[in-house]
């Protein structure tokens, strides 16, 4: 049987998914610490026993998606507890359900107990892996050094925000809210040794690049159109074939 319709169909399915991923990147063009996602395509080889040697059919599958790990632009906000990371390190958080997660969102506030939390409510972990807390009275006037040490003029050193190395970035699942989680919810905290710097009073913006996302949209649309054309010409051929076969009988 001819496969060409299905080959084109495999591409259409993959392209629709790529469009979803691209639309999500664009929707998050202003999300703090967001990392763009890319779809990974792969050809899937189907050997056909009835065909002569050397002929086989390639289908397209979207094998997976990976993370664009480039840093986002640093946006100055002036809020003393906002932190942007410059380098390869990550913050670690404890989510409300007890899960631990990695992320780069440094938009922090204090909760009434003085714990440092993200705007979505996840607790930030300190260098030792425990939830980071600050004395409330001093939190408005803290200075944060490049290595994450939080101090104030009157209170001395108050704590250190944890900067961790990401063990295997591509194997982490995305949980929304800029969080990256492992399957069992526990993460292996290893201090970052690449010299990542904390920038106080700034946030890391999304690393989505407008131009490349919009050109990707155009690419997707073109490729989609090509695959559709393939299907419709295949359809025409079949129609032609049926009408001719019909005539000869």
């Amino acid at each position: 049987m001819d496969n060409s319709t299905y080959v084109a169909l495999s591409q259409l399915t993959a392209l629709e998914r790529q469009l979803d991923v691209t639309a999500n990147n664009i929707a998050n063009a202003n999300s703090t610490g967001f990392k763009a996602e890319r779809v990974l395509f792969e050809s899937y080889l189907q050997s056909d026993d009835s065909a002569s040697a050397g002929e086989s059919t390639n289908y397209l599958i979207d094998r997976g998606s990976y993370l664009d790990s480039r840093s986002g632009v640093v946006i100055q906000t002036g809020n003393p507890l906002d932190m942007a990371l410059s380098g390869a390190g990550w913050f670690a958080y404890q989510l409300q359900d007890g899960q631990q997660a990695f992320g780069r969102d440094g938009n922090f506030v204090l909760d009434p107990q003085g714990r440092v939390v993200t705007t979505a409510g996840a607790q930030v972990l300190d260098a030792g892996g425990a939830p980071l807390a600050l004395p409330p009275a001093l939190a408005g006037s803290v200075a944060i050094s490049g290595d994450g040490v939080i101090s104030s003029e009157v209170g001395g050193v108050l704590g250190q925000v944890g900067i961790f190395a990401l063990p295997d970035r591509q194997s982490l699942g995305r949980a929304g809210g800029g969080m990256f989680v492992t399957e069992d919810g526990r993460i292996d905290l290893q201090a970052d040794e690449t010299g990542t710097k904390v920038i106080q009073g700034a946030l890391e913006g999304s690393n989505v690049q407008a131009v490349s996302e919009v050109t990707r949209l155009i690419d997707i649309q073109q490729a989609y159109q090509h695959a559709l054309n393939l299907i419709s010409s295949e359809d025409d051929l079949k129609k032609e074939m049926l009408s001719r076969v019909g005539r000869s009988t």
Partner: protein
Amino acid sequence: MKALGIAATGMMAQQTNVDVISNNIANANTTGFKTARASFTDLIYENLSREGAVTAEEGNTRPVGLDVGLGVQAVGTVRLNTQGGLTQTQNQFDLAIDGRGYFAVNLPDGDQAFTRDGSFRLSAEGQIVNGNGYEIDPGIVLPDNTTKIEIGDTGIVSAYVAEDPVPVEIGQLTLATFVNDAGMRPLGDNLLQATVASGDAIPSLPGDEGVGILRQGYLESSNVDIVRQITDLIQAQRAYEMNSKAISTADEMMSAANQIK
């Protein structure tokens, strides 16, 4: 095709962003106003194939998964609690807080609200009230025939009465601080209310450690940086356009799919 819905969440988020930015710009001249910034995060992900899933009996695992996100949401508006500039007004009832803290005022319904707007006046009964007529807490009443009042850095209010050259101390202004200023709920009229997220008000005196001091004859201007707001507005508009591009792409692709037969 989820792209339509995803791009719609993006457009809604940018609308929220524009709303927040335009409110900042509208309040650029509001006494004691603090800039707000909308904060966004990605929504949950649809995990189409799991990272680390076993792909062969030899124990090979899938190095990457296939995660398709479902869009974006606004998680909150964060107020930027930096000091606004101090403007001299020479009005003796104008007070600016130089540092952390809020004035407390009593609302007519008995609740307390907090404000950094220190443009106070006198009521018909001689009480110090804010622009809406809400009395400052703790209340201060001026004696009859007061010619002038003086308010010190630490909030001590003294009044010169009639011809007496020696001022009399008539009260002490206090300030309230909060653990999480960003968690307070704005009521409008320059007033904020304490919430579970902000924690209870911590009463303190001006000049205490970590608390601001008072400056009589000054008002705190808003901390809105107009240039910043305009550039944010441009960015929000472009992001909105990009999302609409994603919608039209999805639309054209679906319409093309409809036309193959």
